[in-house]
């Protein structure tokens, strides 16, 4: 359901960011994406949510192929994904519930359904009691939970997390990671880029390691050799 087939990404100034990357993420899988800074983790994630496109090769997200996708079709793909970042990316001038509701409004959710959906999502991430607080009144871990709630508004089949615990202390990291595990347990695939090797070691999920743009290790070895054709 996410398939990279011999993907290359080259930037005019910085050169090759991805070099012949192939892998397959199956439905409901949890995958760690590791590697040093600048190895290409974020580029891979950006390609999944179609913010970047391969220079050569192709990838499939669900049934959508990149780079063949039309610009106008990208929003539809993103509505099937959830994305969270290290810096949470919340709107500071809106309350927690408004932050989540905003994502629902953007995709034209009927207004009578927004309220119930927001409170359900906030309950799911354990923040129902802080619905009317502003982001600055929350801890880092709580803010990341809000971001996760927002990422879940469209019931995505995969959650893309780019260093979601990078700004959090151990305790908050454990909490957020537990939440990601719960989300995965309910059937949503998770692709999580992380530097936290401790976290990777303690959990027996599949690991993809990139270095200098190449996929150097895949604990679910078989899928490294993905055919170039769909």
């Amino acid at each position: 359901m996410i398939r990279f087939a011999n993907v290359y990404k080259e930037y005019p100034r910085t050169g090759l960011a991805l070099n012949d990357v192939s892998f397959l993420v199956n439905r409901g899988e949890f995958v760690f994406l590791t590697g040093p800074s600048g190895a290409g983790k974020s580029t891979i994630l950006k390609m999944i949510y179609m913010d970047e496109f391969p220079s050569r090769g192709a990838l499939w997200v669900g049934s959508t192929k990149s780079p063949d996708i039309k610009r106008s079709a990208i929003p539809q793909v993103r509505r099937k994904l959830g994305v969270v970042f290290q810096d949470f990316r919340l709107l500071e001038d809106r309350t927690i519930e408004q932050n989540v509701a905003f994502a629902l409004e953007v995709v034209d959710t009927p207004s009578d359904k927004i309220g119930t959906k927001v409170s359900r999502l906030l309950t799911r991430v354990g923040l129902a009691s802080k619905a009317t607080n502003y982001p600055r009144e929350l801890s880092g871990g709580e803010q990341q939970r809000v971001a996760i709630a927002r990422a879940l508004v469209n019931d995505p089949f995969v959650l893309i997390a780019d260093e979601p615990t990078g700004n959090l202390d151990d305790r908050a990291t454990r909490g957020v990671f537990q939440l990601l595990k719960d989300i995965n347990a309910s059937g949503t695939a998770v692709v999580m880029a992380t530097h936290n090797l401790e976290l990777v070691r303690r959990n027996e999920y599949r690991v993809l390691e990139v270095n200098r743009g190449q996929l150097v290790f895949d604990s679910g070895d078989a899928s490294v050799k993905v055919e170039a054709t769909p």
Partner: protein
Amino acid sequence: MRLAVREAMLAFRRSPLLSALSVTTIAFSLLAFGLFSLVALNIRSALRSVEERVEVRAFLVDNTPVDSIAGLMEELSKRPEVQRVEYIDAEQALVRARAELGEFKDVFEAGFLPASLDIRMREGFRDPAAVQQVVEQVRLLPFVEEVRYGADWIEKLHRIRNIATATGVVLGIAFAAVAIIIISASIRMTVLARAREISIMRLVGATDAFVRRPFLVDGFVKGVLGGLLALLLTWLARTVVSKSFLEVDFFPPSIAMLGVAAGALLGTMVSSVSVRRHLSRLK
């Protein structure tokens, strides 16, 4: 749409000064246009009433043979720009002069005034060029002593009208250009101020059209406000002039509405173009 309106209002509240500046420049561009159009409109209606009286009067040499006069009358009647030719003999001229001049009627003696041909121009041919053509035909005839027509001031009115129209267009365009620059700058600032929201919108699957919509609403509202402000200012200017100098016509409601619509169009189009440009720069 509700979200678009809300976000647009938020933009107004966040940068009220810049929004007011956008509205004001749109208003000034339309005001310049409006004021000069109003001048042109009033000159035009003045011209029309003057033109209705446009008449070429060819005074004839005494004792001109009737044949020559009849021949000329027939020739003139055939011209498309001539509505009617009338022969006024010396006696009629005297009666008319006495009627027109009232208390001075006694200064004229019989035989003092020459006979004349009064040539009325057809509507649409009452401009200086057409009048001049008829005058040229008549002037050189040996039995025509003198030709009189209100050439100078018809020409002047025409010229003033054209200058007013051209000045209005040029100033309007100049102000519109300033409005375009300011609206574009204000949209750029709004786009930058909302970069985070826009990136989140895109991330959760907002379409480009959806992202642009608040900016279009913003431009539309600014345009309508600018148009209304311009209309108000034009109306005030007209009222002041009417009270202190002379009665001035105002635009009919349909034209006034057209002015506001022009503001709305200007605001929306500039927003549309600049939001596209600025959004494409934003990753």
